[in-house]
């Protein structure tokens, strides 16, 4: 029995995305409809099965009649909506966003355990980032290897907060959270104690699997060896919402 069957009270709307006439449930967001219909929109913080934060701004789209860009992950579809997911302006903004992520921390792809399996690397390729036009910040961040199975390298963190949300919403442990503001912002375990000393961490590893970069990884992996498996997430999320 499909556990994600829509309740009968949800209405269906029709909308147009990139010139395609589509129908969708009224409780869906633009990015969900795009993913279902294989319309590519870059995204980083959004993940099927987790709550929406709209933090990365990479999924910004143009909606006719709106004088500003809207995050496709945080905007519900509406009857008659006209959406453009790809334009010169959007490409320019997305490229700049990805470049800023590279300039902010120290993503040295060539020596990263996630090299070749990294969502930030794929985004750079997709957005045409062959170099970063702004100066690098060159600020050093810490690495916490105190957990016996996992490691967090804040130099490679993009603050998508997927780890925070999966730990809270799916595992129910809420080990991860955020600390600090602006460039000092970083993910923390418990009250900014070493991960290995955490009382709440169940060592389930969900945070590692959902992390888009080499920030959260398994111990003992070498360059390019950290391959992540995120298939569990939509399944667990649907089971949880069906309860």
């Amino acid at each position: 029995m499909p556990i994600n069957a829509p309740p009968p009270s949800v209405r269906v709307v029709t909308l147009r995305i990139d010139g395609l006439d589509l129908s969708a449930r009224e409780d869906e967001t633009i990015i969900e409809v795009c993913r279902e219909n294989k319309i590519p929109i870059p995204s980083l913080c959004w993940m099927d099965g987790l709550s929406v934060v709209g933090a990365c701004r990479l999924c910004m789209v143009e909606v006719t009649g709106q004088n500003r860009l809207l995050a496709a992950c945080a905007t519900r579809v509406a009857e008659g909506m006209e959406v453009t997911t790809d334009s010169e302006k959007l490409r320019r903004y997305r490229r700049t966003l990805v470049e800023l992520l590279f300039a902010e921390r120290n993503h040295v792809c060539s020596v990263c355990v996630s090299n070749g399996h990294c969502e930030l690397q794929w985004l750079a390729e997709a957005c045409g980032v062959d170099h970063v036009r702004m100066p690098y910040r060159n600020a050093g961040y810490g690495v916490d290897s105190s957990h016996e199975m996992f490691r967090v390298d804040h130099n490679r963190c993009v603050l998508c907060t997927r780890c925070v949300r999966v730990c809270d919403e799916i595992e129910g442990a809420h080990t991860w959270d955020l600390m600090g503001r602006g460039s000092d912002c970083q993910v923390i375990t418990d009250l900014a104690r070493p991960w290995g000393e955490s009382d709440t961490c169940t060592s389930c590893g969900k945070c590692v699997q959902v992390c888009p970069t080499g920030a959260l990884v398994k111990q003992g992996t070498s360059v390019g060896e950290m391959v992540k498996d995120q298939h569990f997430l939509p399944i667990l999320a649907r089971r949880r919402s069906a309860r």
Partner: protein
Amino acid sequence: MTAQAQAATATQASTQPAAGKVKVATIWLDGCSGCHMSFLDMDERLVELAEKIEIVFSPFVDAKTLPSQVDVGIIEGSISNEEDEHKARLFRDRCKLLVSLGDCAVNGNVPAMRNPFKLETVYERAYLENVNVNQQIPTDGVPALLKTVRPVHGVVDVDVFIPGCPPSADTIHTILSDLIEGRTPEPIKVTRFGA
């Protein structure tokens, strides 16, 4: 003018048949020479390439000075010391088209991993802490390190960026062929950071 437009213009200029072959210069700044090794990995394709290009200055050839007019300049490595900076400027002055080859030239890569640390700390770590015999920070006959390592485009304008550590021989061949034939190369379609 955008970098790509510049590249296109410069490419057209570089492929004027006046001198017969396209004059290419390459240089190895702060990198591991892996990009130059990858260049050599073009293997037998180097033979056909040699009919179209002339390498006028490079670690591959004996020439000791950079000619005053070069069509394509290829830089491997980041800008880490005063000599690197000087050489990058010289390349920019004398090359119609400047190419950043590999991650060190494009984004600083491993050489730039020292950037979060103070320069004194870096010197101490390299020449005092980890050395048992004859501890000293070299000053004579060596160029002074810059405070921060920069990619080549942090010092001079660059026309074409080829990321990769190193970019594969296929990547170099594709892009070099594009440049020789006067096409505007699209490196991001064939390579990426860390490739």
